[in-house]
């Protein structure tokens, strides 16, 4: 089952491979991501981190988010994956929770419902702002449009049960890395 979107591009890839392609080092996506990495490393914001997965591909990052203090997620650390499209930053990156995440706006496969990652995306957002937004989402979910209805119900209704269920899903980041 080929996705409708991928068919034309795979077709074109044959065409493009024939042509001599020179990848410019100064390509805007790469350059921008390098600059973001630099910014992230220099600013050293506590509770968030991100880094490219491999040397060869700067478009695939992995990151961690620590739960903010005073929330259900305090003291827990979550792993996320970030995939940057070739037209980044004009299009939003695809962000997923790799750690199992039990949260009103995150589904069971880790997809996140956050407006700034969808229709409210702006080209000036960057890895740091995304990570900080996700971190604050952990403490302030949008319960009006939940992906996880149970979590949304329990958020205000039954904090003890929320915490219990959330912890049954939680996996330490060490366990995930071993997998």
């Amino acid at each position, binding site marked *: *089952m080929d*996705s409708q979107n991928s068919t034309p591009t795979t077709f074109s890839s044959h065409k493009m491979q024939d042509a001599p392609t020179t990848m410019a080092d100064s390509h805007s996506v790469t350059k921008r991501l390098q*600059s973001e990495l630099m910014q992230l490393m*220099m600013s050293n914001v506590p509770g968030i981190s991100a880094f490219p997965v491999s040397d060869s591909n700067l478009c695939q990052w992995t990151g961690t988010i620590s739960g903010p203090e005073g929330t259900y997620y305090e003291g827990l650390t979550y792993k996320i994956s970030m995939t940057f499209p070739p037209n980044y930053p004009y299009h939003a990156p695809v962000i997923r929770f790799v750690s199992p995440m039990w949260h009103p706006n995150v589904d069971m496969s880790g997809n996140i419902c956050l407006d700034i990652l969808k229709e409210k995306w702006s080209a000036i957002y960057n890895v740091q702002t995304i990570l900080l937004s996700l971190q604050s989402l952990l403490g302030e979910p949008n319960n009006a449009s939940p*992906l996880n209805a*149970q979590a949304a119900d329990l958020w205000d209704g039954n904090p003890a049960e929320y915490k219990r269920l959330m912890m049954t899903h939680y996996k330490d980041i060490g366990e995930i890395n071993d997998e």
Partner: protein
Amino acid sequence: MLSSIGYSTIMDQISDPSDWTGTRLPSLLMLDSSLRCRICKDFFKSPFMTECTHTFCSLCIRKCIASTPTSETACCPICRAPVLEIRLRRNQVVEDLVEWFENARAAIMTTAKEEPVVIAVPVASTDSERVSSSERRGRKRRRDSVDEEPSTSVTPESGDSASRRAARRGSRKVSYEVKLDIGESEDEVAPFDNGKKSDARSSASSRGDSSFIILDDDGNPDGLVPCPVCNVVMTPQEVQIHLDDCFKEQEAKESRANPSSSSKSNDHIRTLQSQPLSTKSKKPLQRLPKLQYDLFNDSKLRSKLVELGLPAYGTRVQLQQRHTEWVSLWNANADSNNPKTKKQLLRDLNDWESNLTKYAVQKVSANDLATWGRTHSNEFDDLIARAKKNVQKKLHPEQQQGEPNTVEVNVQNQHEGQDSVPKELKKVDGIDQKISSRTDERMDYDCDVLKGTLITPPVSSDAFM
């Protein structure tokens, strides 16, 4: 895993505002970052200003506008105010600022990274404590008064305070600090003074008039100041009135002697401003119009690309994307002071496209969501069938085979109702939570399922690309 990667070599090539932290001039961090485009994080290239007064590189904002779906109005990435491409205006001042800052950056950085050099200040006063604190303040204030006196109104009080300050200081120290004041104030005066008067000042100083330097407020304990043009000493109030006449006289004299230019610094400014104008008039690069792609069929679009000298292979979507990108590249290049050749631009376009396809290939191979979708396809079929029932209760599932019109409606509802359908199914746990995820992958998947079960209506092929 992460620590093994060596990014230091790449990082050395990238300049960043954070380079200034840890140097002796950390305050330049803000200047550095203000001169950068918020989209590409690099220094502005052909900066353009939106109506909401935000500045971006020409290419960045054009690409940003081009990437907005045609159904929506493009908005400013910073404040989300509506942005129209034709309303963008060049920001020449920023362009010049960037140019001069970039030129000087390396040198400033080197200086800023050197070990701090302690300069011995010759202080004559024995009262060292007062000198260190109050004197520094005094120097600052005095510099302000030097700057202000010729241009803005000066209260009578300032004359008195100047004389009091002068009386406090020893003569040796005064002469040292007067020189210091002039050296420092030179840079600061020019941008803040208004037009004529700054010209007057700089013309006086560029002529190397030494008497102007010596005869400062400290040199005139009575609070008298020299006219910056003719150096006649008078009170600050008198200078105000005198200066305009004196300057006009001076200018008339200079223009008579040398009709082409009145002063060196003036010339410098003028050449700066006329630079882009002259290049523009030399090479009037035509802007390319945007196309309303709906009005072009495939062959027309292809011939349009050939006309522009672009490759014309690929699918319709590729043709459109290529044309959009080319228009952005071309128009941004037309804005540039140093436009690239068409050959270079074509190379840029090729880089862009190969990057796009490289990514697409990776996406297919590494997309675990696609495999996940494959294994769960039955569940999706089932859910979609149920969703259809909910959306159009009157229709029976058998109608899928007949009545193409209703099928088309059905399909549209399916997609327009992306958000509403999952809500109805929310009561069912587990799988339903999965279907309600609104990611792109799911959108693709949805299309496929529909394509498989229905005769694809004409709407679907373009609408989801």
